[in-house]
């Protein structure tokens, strides 16, 4: 077949192609830190997440979203409440603790401090003991659910850190609590 009539158009096309290829400047800015941003399935925050993130945390933040706030994956509800003079886990809070247990089982590197509290009635040092009992009840619950004890620490603040001031039963009910702090 005759090549000649197509030669001109081929030559023009070739020249255009060469010109296009040479005029781009390429993408070599900040090259080394962008390996994460290109990963598929990211929540769209990958680009801004890139700066200053150490290698240890990248694995935790990348694995999908469950409706996260600051860090993706940790359950929202982190305070459970107790009845007067009680340290038993009420049924309505079992699902909350189950969610925390599941998160902790899936993230063996995650660590929680269970902060125990009591209401203001009675003497302070005895209330330190009551707060600790409640936090230990939560610890027991989590370990039964399979959470490793190395991921849990227990601290009691007794009546020293009330959530709500006041002498009413409602205030007391809001202070008898254990906070799951990551």
């Amino acid at each position, binding site marked *: 077949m005759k090549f000649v009539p197509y030669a001109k158009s081929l030559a023009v096309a070739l020249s255009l192609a060469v010109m296009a290829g040479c005029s781009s400047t390429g993408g070599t800015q900040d090259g080394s830190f962008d390996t994460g941003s290109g990963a598929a399935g990211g929540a769209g925050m990958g680009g801004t997440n890139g700066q200053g993130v150490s290698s240890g945390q990248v694995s935790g933040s990348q694995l999908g979203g469950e409706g996260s706030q600051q860090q993706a994956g940790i359950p929202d509800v982190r305070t459970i409440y107790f009845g007067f003079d009680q340290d038993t886990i009420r049924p309505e809070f079992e699902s909350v603790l189950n969610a925390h247990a599941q998160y902790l089982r899936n993230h063996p590197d995650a660590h929680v401090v269970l902060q125990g509290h009591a209401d*203001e*009635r*009675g*003497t*302070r*040092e*005895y209330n*330190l*003991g*009551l707060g*600790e*009992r409640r936090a230990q009840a939560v610890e027991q619950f989590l370990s039964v659910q399979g959470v490793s004890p190395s991921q849990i620490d*227990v*601290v*009691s*603040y*007794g009546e*020293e*850190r009330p959530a709500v*001031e*006041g*002498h009413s039963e409602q205030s007391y009910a809001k202070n008898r609590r254990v906070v799951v702090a990551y």
Partner: protein
Amino acid sequence: MKRLTPLLFGWLLLFSSLASADLTIQITKGSDQAIPIAIVPFATDGAQLPEDLSGIVESDLSRSGQFAPLPRDTLVATPHSADEVYFRDWRSVDSNYVLVGRVSPQGDQYRIRFELMDVYGEKRMLGEALTVSADQLRAGAHYISDKVYEAITGTRGAFSTRIAYVTAQGAGDKRQFALHVADADGHNGHQILSSDDPIMSPSWSPDGGKLAYVSFETGNSAIYVQNLATGQRVQLTDFKGINGAPVWSPDGRRLAMSLSKDGQPEIYIMDIATRKLTRITRNGAIDTEPAWAPDGRSLIFTSDRSGGPQLYRRDLNSDRTQRVTYTGDYNSRGRFAPDGKSLFLVHRDSRGFHVARQNLDTGRLTVLTDTQWDESPSVAPNGAMVIFATQRGNQGILGVVSADGKASYRLPSAQGDVREPAWSPFLN
């Protein structure tokens, strides 16, 4: 003979009524009024003193609940020494005692002379002179109060002692905590520790030079000992779990404390020099809030091993533990009176939490206060008064009640909440 017998009978009757020449009238009760005393403002020879000495003595003695100083506008005379005192003046205003004195500046110091007169005995009971510097004037007045109190009641005065307490200001995450030391009347307070994290349970060493306390500054409770003169401190414990309720032994060498490092709060005794721990309780209950008997041979502590908090006594020689409180379902935070015969504690009844006294011989419990959220009772070293924390509206304040419950007063607090008071031992 028959005529004489009626006469004899009559005389016998008369004689019989005279026969009890040693007549005795039985006095079986008195009044528990406060003792009236006239405190005449001391002469100052025209000098302007920075402190009103007789005013300080007046408020010391009236706070004790045992004295009723006469109001100044009812003083019938103003003597300043024993020879200026006319006893009938003071009998006419029903005053049992008169205190007079004189202050003379001497360079940058002051010489104070004071005399205490017994009005009905018509004699001088007490007379002394002391020299103090300007910043020691309050201490001089407290010394006079101590001497007057002891001369009249027979009990040593505790007006020259100090108190430690914790304050909390602000709310939520911005709450600031501080540990303070002040005179027993609340004056001359200064801060010895400030923190973003809670401070609890101050305890005075027997020589009055150190405080042990609990601080959460490391994120968990830990026990510290701080030297008050130098400000230096040592962290004594950092066990896992609760490190709380430190109390000094009477010989100053050991601290009893509550540690939950073995699963739940238990009582331990730590030798301060060697840091060696001796475990005292061993059960699944909360055992906390220990206190030493004045002879150092036993401890009382709070335990809920019977279901609710009650006080128990542990003999350190025989290692036997015995329950002490049986009234009501909540008794905690016991402290010994200095004579070892009674305990001051927190008792809950249907109206709330009160300071109460339990007699150890009879087991009788007497409620001393009618406020509702009382805690942390601490006994003065003369056993006459008890300081404690309570609530007034929404503010935490300190209250003081006499050991028999008859007199009480509040200590003023500037801002925020005040709690956890501790009364020092005798310091002089």
